């Protein structure tokens, strides 16, 4: 039986990857893996920010499924739990405070590292990818030292693309040596432009995107380094690696920055790659898929019975994956604190049609992603399919209120 590895990259936009059509040259290593990968072209995150999407990625359930979100509900099944019960060794390494021990994400892991005890700098307020790698290296080396070992499930998550965008000079030089601003200036851009969601200065937004791109290039290097660790420990031939994001990031496409509660492609479109060294050629899957399908796929890869509490379907084998729509939801994070919990929004996508509903504004939108990939032309009043899609999304709206 193969080991399964889930490698997630925070805030990684799908469209910056060469294997998804970018010409930017930011991901040479990930691109080089394609002949051993299944590449999913229509994968959707179940939420536009970490707390909204990770329930999908690790518990195959939706963000607002179990009432008003606070911490990980005990009603959710974390992927680590059934695996551990089945005798698979489980390990997690990340540095995202929304997924920490305190919020309950440590359930079911044999090894769980969330970095919350470390001191971090305000400009790099997380543990960097190379340090996550060295943690993983240490754990894998120790775990596999004896030679004979039970299969493992490893989840690792890189934070380096997440704001503040204050990349190191060596990575800037790899992407665009003409960027000469100091780290102080980069940090000021974060405080004065990004945090204020101020898109009025086009040049500043462009510069933020450039700095973001530099971090993408940096993370591609960490992925390469991680593969080298697997190779060194002779684990690459018997591991399957699922690579994806939790959500994307916005640079003014819909009037904002960063990742709030919007449901447009720059946040919802997921890169999703299944790397399997046993493949003799790359494959592309154009079916519409969701991140809630990842936990059932992992269970399937270990040959275990499906988990009743998981709402997704196994993506493997590809030919058995059903044609279905995708949902996503969010609740305005900023308003949560102020007590206004009703700024919730939802989306439903079927084929290339997407409806979005903002409950607090009672506002519907609809986009034809094929004709209008940038989602600028709202066709809710003209599309003959609008009513049908709205009907499918309606039962999900505010269902968390009654729970």
């Amino acid at each position, binding site marked *: 039986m193969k080991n399964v590895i889930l490698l997630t990259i925070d805030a990684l936009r799908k469209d910056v990857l060469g294997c998804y059509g970018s010409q930017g040259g930011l991901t040479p290593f990930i691109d080089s893996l394609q002949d051993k990968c299944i590449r999913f072209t229509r994968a959707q995150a179940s939420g536009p920010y970490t707390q909204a999407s990770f329930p999908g990625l690790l518990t195959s359930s939706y963000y607002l499924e179990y009432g008003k979100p606070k911490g990980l509900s005990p009603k959710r099944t974390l992927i680590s739990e059934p695996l551990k019960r089945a005798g698979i060794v489980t390990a997690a390494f990340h540095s995202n405070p929304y997924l920490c021990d305190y919020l309950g994400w440590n359930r079911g892991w044999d090894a769980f590292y969330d970095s919350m005890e470390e001191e971090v700098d305000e400009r790099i*307020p997380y543990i960097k990818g190379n340090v996550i790698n060295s943690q993983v290296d240490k754990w894998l080396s120790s775990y596999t030292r004896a030679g004979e070992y039970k299969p493992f499930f490893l989840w690792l998550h890189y934070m380096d693309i997440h704001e503040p965008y204050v990349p190191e000079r060596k990575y800037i030089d790899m992407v665009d040596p003409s960027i000469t601003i100091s780290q102080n200036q980069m940090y000021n851009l974060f405080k004065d432009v990004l945090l204020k969601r101020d898109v009025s200065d086009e040049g500043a937004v462009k510069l933020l995107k450039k700095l973001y791109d530099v971090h993408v290039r940096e993370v591609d290097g960490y992925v390469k380094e991680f593969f080298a660790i697997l190779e060194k420990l002779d684990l690459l031939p018997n591991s399957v690696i699922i690579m994806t994001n939790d959500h994307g990031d916005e640079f003014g496409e819909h009037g904002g920055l960063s990742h709030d509660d919007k449901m447009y492609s720059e946040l919802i479109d997921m890169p999703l790659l299944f790397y399997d060294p046993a493949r003799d050629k790359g494959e592309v899957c154009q079916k519409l898929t969701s991140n809630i399908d990842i936990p059932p796929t992992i269970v399937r890869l270990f040959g275990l019975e499906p988990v009743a509490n998981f709402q997704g379907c196994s993506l493997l084998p590809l030919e058995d994956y059903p044609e279905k729509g995708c949902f996503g939801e969010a609740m305005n994070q900023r308003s949560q604190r102020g007590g206004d919990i009703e700024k919730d929004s939802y989306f439903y996508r079927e084929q290339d049609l997407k409806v979005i509903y903002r409950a607090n504004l009672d506002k519907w939108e609809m986009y034809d992603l094929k004709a209008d990939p940038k989602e600028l032309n709202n066709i809710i009043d003209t599309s003959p399919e609008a009513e049908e899609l709205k009907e499918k999304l309606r039962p999900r709206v505010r269902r968390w209120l009654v729970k």
Partner: protein
Amino acid sequence: MAEEDKVKRCAELVEKSKEVVREAFQRFKPDELAITWTGGKDSTTALWIIRQVCLEDKIKLPKVMTIDEYDSFQEIHDFMNKWAKEWKLDLEWCRNDDVIKAAGGKLGAPVKVKDLNKRNQAELKRIGFDQDTFPFEAESYTGNHLMKTVMFNMYIERHNVKAVFQGLRRDEQTARTQDDYFEKKEAAHLIPEHVRIKPILHFTERDIWDNIMINKIPYCVLYEQGYRSLGAKTTSQIAVPGVPAWEQDLEHTVERAGRRQDKEQMMGRLRKLGYM
């Protein structure tokens, strides 16, 4: 590992540590140095090694500082007092009494920022804390800064300390894998300039216990009860009840899992990431 291999390995590890300590004494006078001691297994090991070097080379043992975060175990106090006497340490307990007073000496009690002295108020401002109250918890974001960092800084300033010995291990704080045995801290936002010397950086948790057993280094009784990592009393938890730390599966489980996490720590991180 066979017993004689362990003995050999520990001798090598200690020898490497002694080299670091001797280099420290080359670079600094004993009066410019201080040893940080928590009573935990790591800093006690470091202290023991430094003391060995001082005995062997007839050097005055540098002064020792410990931070009393108030929320602490009596067992650790007893252990430290006993060995401070036995080893004739010049030990200073550093405690932020102003914060304790403002909390009425009660853990978890709300501390009003306006009840604090000027220095503590300024320190809160420095870490970007802009609210009126915070709960008195040593391992919270604010509590950690006032009870530990500020006390440390004041000690450094008061004694003109140029370098401190720390019982930090590389495998415990892997975030700092790049660190060397001598880490120069420039005067910055939150700290005065000093050098951190880490003589036991290359020890693993297993090495620490092997070495403690082989060299009969004293340790706090709490480790026998199953604690693996000792921090503040209310946030440290027994990792495996009744199983001494050195008999636990140190290789496959996380050392710090026994420490409860703190909400403010998480909030501090989230703020830095641009949330809240």
